[in-house]
Structure formats: C-alpha cells, structure tokens
C-alpha cells in the first residue's frame, strides 16, 4: 500500500490489467456485455439493460429495439427537471417511421365531422397568434414495465421512458374551432406518419388515438412544433406532435398528419384493443383474473417520484453529508409533497421541493442526509399530489404492463471514514 492510500494492484485493476480482467477479448474490465434481458425476477436496475447507441440528433441512449426504434433515457439525465431534446426517450410503434419529412408537402389535415376542413403547413402553425407554451411530462404507459411480477411481454422499460420538456404549439381546441366542429361530434382522432405492415382491415398499421371532445384533457392539448425552444428531433415527432399534459404518451401522437373529428367513438385498433387497463383501483389485477376484467383506454398518469442520486454505484463515507435528489410528477394535479426515508421506509421526512414549472411538469426535490452508521441501508421516496393521492408500496400488475407507480427504492452502502 502506498502512503497515499492507493495500492498498485488497485491501479492495475482500474486500468483493466489485473489478472483475469480481460474476460472477453478486446473489452476492458467492467465492459463485458450483458445479455439483452433481465428476468424472470424483476429488473434489478434503475433503467433497462440494452446497449447505449447514438442515433441522429440524439445523445447516447439505451437501445431497447432498433426497428421500430425504442430508446430509453439513462438515469443521470433526470437530475434536472427539463430533459434535453437529445436525451429524450423514443418510442415508435410502427415500422417504417419517418426519417424524412418534406415540408413543401407536409400538411396537417383538420378534417372529419367539421364545417371547414383545414390544411395547414408548418409555417401556418408557427405564424398563428395563439401559439402558447406548457411544461409537461411525457411518460410511456409501459414505463417501468420490467418491475412487473410475474413479468409481462412488451418493451422492457426501466424508469427512463419519460421526459419533461417545454412544449410550444397551437391549442388543439383553437384548430377545432377554426374548422368548426359539427353538432354530434364526440371525439377527435389523431394520426401520425408511421406506417405498419398489418392488414388494413385491422387498423393496426396506422397509429390512431382518440381524445374525447368533452373534458379537460383536450382543453390542455397542443399541436406542438417546439420542444425546449427548438424544432422537434425527427425521432421525437418532427414537424409536429400532440402534447396532452397529464395523459400518458400513447396520446401524444408523433409526426402528426391528421386531426379527425369523429361523430362516434373511435373503435379502431389502438383504442379498442391496445393500451387498455382494468377498471380496478390503480388498474391492478392478477394473472388469474385478468382475462375477465372490464377494461378501458389508459388515460391519466398516477403520481410518481424517483430517486436519481445517490445511485448506489459508490460507497458513501459515514459522517459526510450527501444530498438525495430526484423528480416527482402527477397527471392528476401538482405534486404537493415529497417524503424520503433513509431506513427502508421505517421513518420518513419531508424533502424540499424545487422550482415549480407548472402542474404537469417534473418537480425537482432534494433532501440532505448525513449517514450516521456504516452498513447497508435502503433509500425510499414517495410523493403526494393535489388530488390527495400518495404513492404506496403495493406493486401494480396488469397484462399490458401499464401504470406502475410503486415507491422507488435504492440500496446504498455506507462505509467507515477512517
């Protein structure tokens, strides 16, 4: 051991030169590839386990699938309440999805059960005088699906199928007002440019989602062309996408092409067969009861909170202060309170909330902590929203892998300081 406390053996190992370090030819220690799956137990990691990949306009993100593309945002990007465009997660349903849009031909059609169908260019949208902004969380319905027990098929997201941006666009209600919704209209159907291979009669090959004309979700909805003050990346829906603060991503149709007013409820594939949840508390059921459960289209996001740091990858010295940091949000009204526990949930104390960016945005929180004893302990975080809902410990289970919002836990190790 050297006087500075760092041994030669440690240095060799850190450089990947220790005995047995090169288990796989050409790969340094710690870079050995993991299989692309976890299970049959719950995914033990914060995020999913795919490789980091670089795609156009994006930072290195975790690849779940390559065609169509699904990318997850790594944990450390959530130290801030605004997710940069380059780091924002990506989830397409249908292959091919656009890698090219000709703005001389792209038009947003506002059509269907309306008096005056509209055909709007991107310039038409950008130049309107009712352009507005909202900061809102976009979270995949299946975020954290890899926590389910028993596991369910689907994209095996960790916690990073979410992001929060400042969205700029035109209120969907304003476009509908311009087009003149006819009497008897009940829903508005949104359709993107992605194209699947399924037979046309099934409707699975066109990505279509519908919002009720009545109700406050549509009041909040935008056709957004701006994301954090910049154009949308192509993988995030350039030139325009739907933004529905409070609702899961499935309604935030990307590369939007059609806004179609319907005079009867959408009975198409993506509403009637996909993205449905049991009408039970928290949308939870059991494998035995799932087949008989009454279901409805998924809608509002329940309250969630996340511990981003410390992430458990390094030991914490006893007696030295650290700051627990993370984010919280809810689709049912602003986060009003975040509590943390440093003893596995036995006792709780209130965290300090960061800047309020709006009721549908990520709310940063922080809580200082000075570990008092060496050993292992589990950090926990739970949030409460304006509707009074508080996160609990009970898991969620449904066949689609939707609506997970149990309390997050992170095991950490406290070491001696001398």
């Amino acid at each position: 051991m050297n006087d500075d406390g760092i041994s030669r053996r440690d240095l060799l190992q850190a450089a990947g030169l220790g005995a047995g370090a090169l288990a796989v030819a050409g790969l340094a220690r710690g870079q050995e590839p993991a299989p692309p799956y976890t299970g049959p137990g719950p995914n033990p990691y914060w995020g999913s386990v795919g490789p980091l990949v670089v795609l156009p306009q994006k930072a290195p993100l975790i690849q779940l699938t390559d065609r169509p593309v699904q990318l997850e945002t790594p944990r450390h990007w959530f130290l801030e309440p605004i997710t940069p465009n380059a780091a924002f997660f990506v989830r397409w349903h249908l292959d091919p999805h656009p890698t090219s849009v000709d703005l001389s031909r792209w038009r947003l059609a506002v059509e269907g059960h309306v008096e005056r169908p509209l055909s709007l260019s991107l310039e038409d949208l950008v130049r309107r005088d009712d352009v507005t902004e909202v900061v809102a969380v976009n979270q995949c319905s299946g975020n954290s699906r890899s926590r389910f027990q028993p596991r369910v098929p689907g994209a095996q997201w960790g916690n990073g199928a979410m992001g929060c941006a400042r969205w700029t666009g035109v209120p969907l209600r304003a476009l509908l007002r311009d087009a003149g919704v006819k009497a008897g209209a009940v829903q508005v159907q949104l359709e993107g440019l992605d194209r699947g291979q399924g037979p046309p009669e099934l409707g699975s090959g066109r990505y279509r989602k519908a919002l009720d004309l009545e109700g406050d979700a549509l009041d909040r909805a935008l056709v957004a062309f701006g994301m954090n003050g910049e154009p949308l990346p192509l993988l995030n829906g350039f030139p325009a996408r739907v933004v529905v603060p409070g609702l899961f991503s499935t309604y935030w149709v990307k590369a939007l092409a059609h806004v179609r007013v319907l005079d009867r409820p959408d009975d198409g594939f993506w509403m009637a067969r996909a993205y449905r949840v049991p009408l039970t508390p928290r949308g939870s059921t059991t494998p035995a009861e799932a087949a008989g459960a009454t279901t409805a289209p998924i809608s509002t996001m329940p309250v969630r909170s996340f511990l981003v740091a410390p992430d458990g990858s390094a030991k914490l010295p006893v007696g030295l202060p650290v700051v627990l940091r993370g984010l919280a949000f809810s689709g049912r009204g602003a986060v009003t309170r975040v509590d943390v526990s440093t003893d596995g949930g036995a006792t709780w104390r209130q965290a300090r909330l960061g800047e309020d960016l709006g009721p549908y945005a990520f709310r940063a929180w922080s809580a200082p902590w000075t570990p008092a004893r060496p050993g292992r302990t589990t950090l926990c975080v739970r949030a409460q929203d304006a509707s009074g809902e508080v996160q609990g410990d009970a898991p969620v289970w449904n066949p689609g892998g939707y609506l997970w919002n149990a309390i997050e836990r992170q095991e950490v190790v406290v070491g001696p300081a001398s």
Partner: protein
Amino acid sequence: MARRPEALLLALLLAGCPGSPPTGSSTGSSSGSSAPPSLVPPGALAQPLSRLPDEGPVYAIDPLPARTPPLVPGAGRDALVAHCSTCHSTAYVSLQPPLPEAAWRATLDKMQRTYGAGVPEAAAEEVLAYLVAHYTPETIEAAYAALAGAPAGGADVGARTYEAACAPCHQPDGRGLPGAFPPLVGHAPALAAARREHLVRLVLFGQQGPIQAGGQRFDAAMPGAGHLTDEELAGVLNYVTRAWGNDARLPASAAPFAPEEVARARARPLTPREVHAQRGP
C-alpha cells in the same frame, strides 16, 4: 435544423481529408476474427459523423442502422427471423424476460390474431418450439451460455457479419422480403459484376432511393454499416456474392473483395442519397 458549429467544422475537416479516420467507431479493429460473437449489437458504439444537409424543404436524418442482438442458435430461428422481421426486428424477442410457454403462445397468438401477422400455422409452431427451447426461465441461461461460447469457427467473418448485421432484413436465406427488403440471391453477384465500387459504398454508407432487384421495385432506405471493420465488410461482400448459389452467377474473373478496397472507399464519405445518385448504369 440547428447544428453545433464545432460538429460542422469537424464534418467538413473529415470530409475534405483523404485518409481521415473511418466514420465508424475505432473499437471494431481490435476484435480479431477469432473473437466469440459479441452480445452487444454490432455498431452499438458507432459514432455517426455530422454532415451538412442540403438547403431544400426536405428534413431528413440518415437511415437508422440495424443493431439487432444475436439470437440463440437452434432449429426454428430462421423461421422466426423470416416471419417476425416483416413488422419488427428480432430485438423485440431478445429483450423479453424469459417467459413460460403459455406466455410465448399467447404472444404469438396476439401477433397472429390481434396484429394480423399472417404466419402459416406450421411456421408459427416452429417459432413457438424455438422460443420454448431457448427463451423460458428453465432454458434461457443454457441458451445464452451456448451463444456466448459458440465457436467463431465454422462460420467465417463474412457469414458471422451477415448473420448479425444483414440477415435481420435480407433474411438468413438471402431472399429478402417482398415489398420491404431486396433479395441478395442473384442480385448481389449482378451488382458485383456491374457496379463493384457501388457495392462497397452501399454497405459502407447505405443508400436511399428507388432501385430494382430480382424484378421488383424497392424504395426503402438501407442504413450504412460503417461501424464494421474493413475486414468485416470485405468478408460480408464476399459472403453475399458467393452464398446461396450466387458463386455460380459470379463471373469467373471477379476477384474477392479486399479490406483495402473498403478502406479506400471509406476515405470518401457519401450520404445514402449520394450513394444512390452515383450508383452508375
């Protein structure tokens, strides 16, 4: 779209600099031909090079690369690749947790009935048997141990590269998928004979634009595979121009593709559209 000035400068410097480093990652060259197949999808560390777009109204990104993790070897794998790849890459299979037989059966049933996959019953049974043999809680660890330990020999670098990088679209039998991915049977030796340099640029940089192959028209974009090494790309070109009976269609005078040929083409980067425009008669 806004790009950072330093990225643009780097792109211009590299574009104008013969003998500049390859556009792909520099990690590939260290993987000797005797290395076991990696569990990391090919190109996982590839670094795409920024290029200036044109000034027209089309906003485009390069075709998205196929980075499909390898599937465990076994009977039924080719049927799975052939039928499932029509709608999605097989990364959708390999990312799943190990599932019991009933769950795999329900998933196949959902693809058939709910999404209308139209897989013939016999092929669906073959796919199910493959999944049950390798991707259940009881079987998956042994299956991945076999995959990780699979001797690299048997298949040469070209065959291995083809399986990992090309077969997800062009199919293990090189016949492609009608309407989606062009066949290489017959087509690859014809290209090698008439447009040899184009074929090298095609695998390096990808291509975007309408083409004819095997009497069919295709208009899909193919991503480049510049993240692969010169040896891997030369190997895969030799493989696709000779496999599946293509060797009989290749002119006797055709020399094998050499890594140096790939290196020369790599020094002059093109966009997928430029590759199409320069493909020749």
